[in-house]
């Protein structure tokens, strides 16, 4: 299966873990995954992005206009992933916002759900917004937003099946496994509208 995904977020949101779980689940399902996390100074709250692909390709870096799905764990960060989106590709955005401190000077420049919707609509794409931080808090910890978005991703794409995703979460995460699994299902449920119980 050929598959290209660009995920964006900010340091501390768990993009690496998010990417690792997808790629490991893909590996377990027999596809040939690779991923690249561009972290730079992410430890200090900077932008982080991850390119995840499966198929025959040799390197994980995706060219512009080739991503089947772009996704972000923070509202404004989706803008970094836009150039990678292919025509007809899907867009998944967490509505969690963390304003870069520069934006505190000009908050009007920070995008909103509406401005992003308009922006994508003009280009023929319709983003799906997920209140990942709200869902994560309901589950019990804001830190599981990445798993919420993972659940949402699996629900919109079927890139891996839910069983192997959950199994991989259990194998990969060392502490707070249940809350992470719960976050995954809540994200999945948010998109599919089905109650996993």
């Amino acid at each position: 299966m050929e598959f290209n995904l660009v995920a964006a977020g900010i340091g501390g949101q768990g993009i690496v873990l998010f990417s690792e779980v997808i790629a490991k689940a893909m590996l377990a399902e027999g596809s040939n995954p690779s991923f690249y996390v561009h972290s730079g100074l992410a430890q200090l709250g900077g932008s982080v992005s991850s390119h995840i692909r499966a198929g025959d390709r040799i390197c994980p870096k995706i060219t512009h206009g080739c991503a089947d799905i772009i996704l972000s764990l923070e509202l404004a960060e989706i803008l970094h992933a836009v150039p990678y989106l292919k025509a007809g590709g899907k867009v998944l955005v967490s509505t969690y916002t963390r304003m870069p401190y520069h934006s505190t000077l000009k908050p009007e420049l920070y995008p909103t759900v509406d401005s992003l919707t308009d922006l994508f609509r003009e280009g023929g794409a319709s983003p799906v917004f997920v209140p990942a931080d709200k869902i994560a808090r309901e589950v019990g910890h804001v830190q599981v937003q990445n798993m919420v978005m993972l659940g949402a991703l699996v629900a919109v794409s079927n890139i891996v099946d839910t069983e192997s995703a959950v199994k991989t979460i259990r194998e990969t995460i060392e502490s707070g496994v249940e809350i992470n699994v719960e976050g995954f299902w809540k994200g999945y449920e948010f998109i599919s509208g089905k109650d996993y119980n």
Partner: protein
Amino acid sequence: MSPDLPPDNPKRSPGGGHRLLLGNEAMAQGLYEAGCRVAAAYPGTPSTEILESLSTYQAGNLHLEWSVNEKIAVEVAAAASCAGLRSAAVMKQVGLNVALDPLMSLAYTGVVGGMVIIVADDPGPHSSQTEQDTRLLAMAAGVPVLDPVTPEEAREMVHQAYLISERYQTPVILRPVLRICHSRGPVGPVSDRYEGPGPAFVKDTNRWAATPRHRLTLHGELNRKLEKMPSDPLVSGMNGLWRPSKGQGEAAILASGTSAAYAMDLIAERGMDEEMPLFVVRCPWPLGEEGVVETLGGFKRILVLEETGPFLEILLRHRLNVSGRTDGLVPSEGEVTPDVVSEAMDAFFGISNLRSQISKSGEGERERLLSDPGSGIGNPLSEEPGAAAGAKPSPPTLCAGCPHRSSFWALKKTMPGAIYTGDIGCYTLGIELGAVDTVLCMGASISQAAGFYWAYRQSEGPAQPIAGVIGDSTFYHAGVPALINAVQQGAAFVLVIVDNGTTAMTGCQPTPGTGELLSGKEGRDVPLEEVVRGCGVKKLWIVDALDFDALSNSISTAAAAAAEGEMAVVISRSPCVLNITERQGAVPAVDLEICTACGVCTDRFGCPALVMEEDGVHIIADLCPGCGICIEVCPTGAIAAPGGRKG
């Protein structure tokens, strides 16, 4: 000069058992398998995880260390190789500048046990001062260099490098770029560890302690090695056509490293194997030019794709009609991304309608949104992602509660108008607080402050205050000789050593100040204050970085001492927030009645836990560890501690 050669690359168990590994982890696996016995490194992005990963392998006969700097790492590893063991030194590309002294000499003396120097380049640059190309330094030193195309290949090349190193008794540089180091992909299972001979140093002063006369002989030996290597199948076998081709025609590509990987993907995507023959160079130096010319001589034009400079392009330009950086087809600076490769290939092969062809096949289509000027969303975004909506990328910033922010604020407050010399580490971000004016290289904060001092001593005007800021790990790395020099020469300025007890920027590796070792075992600590005093400093203050009044007073007193002609050092100490196990204090409260939304705390102080909203400043409790410094920063007194500050 023909050492007993170890067997070829160990056989690996076929199929199955693949793990998803970082390129750096793959290289660590290679080092373990190849029987590396001594490995030394100084942490630096993108190379850091190599030694961290190697430390997770259980091997009794393996010494690992975070050396104080890269020069020392190379010297430690080199001695082990001279004793006959396989060794490795690991660093980022600017680290090789520090280690260039031993490397140049080591090329002459050579080694006995295999020695691999892994130097990770950072085209971009994403987290470095320069975009320098390590291959050029390898050439200058006369040391072979290997350029891996994929992470798995980087692991294989560790084995290959040891074989070359031992056959020619020379250190070998393995040069992965950032995209190799930080990519993850499936890597085969760990094979059995090669068990080489134990230590047996053979004394030979003409070699190991050579005087200039013998150095001339050694230089001759080095040149003979470099002449022989390119025709050795062990070396030349690494270079060749990616897929069989007819061998002549209009145009072909010559590529190395990740650029070759991108070219492979793009050629495959386009199904243009025949039209775009690709020659891959895995050993760029010493290059068997004859082999390359034999294969590519029949082509009229050659596109060269490589990182970071036009190395192969310049080597081959007199033998082949090359294109690339020298004729502007590839940008001279910045990373060679798949998009750069794609554009260069299109332009070179003159395939103007390629995009529409791909579009028809429904694959790899460049997004309509971006290429169609009429679509609105595309163009602004394609120029600079995010620019359309005005959102800047989240810039890196010091963490909420970072003790460095307190130090910078105190420095700005007590020494306004000073020249602030900065250094390399998280605290380079003091730029955001206006408390860093210069950043040159590791340790330069101290010597630059001294240089400014001597420059302004010649001025008739009022004395110019000067303050340097350096982190603890950087101080041990390159600051110590600079401080000895400043003291001995009689320079007088304020030096703030921001001591968070760790090498935070690269992921919190231990420093000599903590005594902790890479192995996790307890070593001997080398306390910072003893080193500072040992450098001859008489005026030293040690203060809690989060005790803002005490810190300000210390810097203020130090500034007065510096004005009197004393070298004055303040150690501003508090653990890195990434390492604290309990809160620094309670989350302060903002009185929105008093807050005037002046922006001093959000803009100038710049703590990410503080956000300006319509009614004033709010504190994001999830982010705030409670350092309480914003209480001191607020000019109107709107921020206060609810339960008083801790301890």
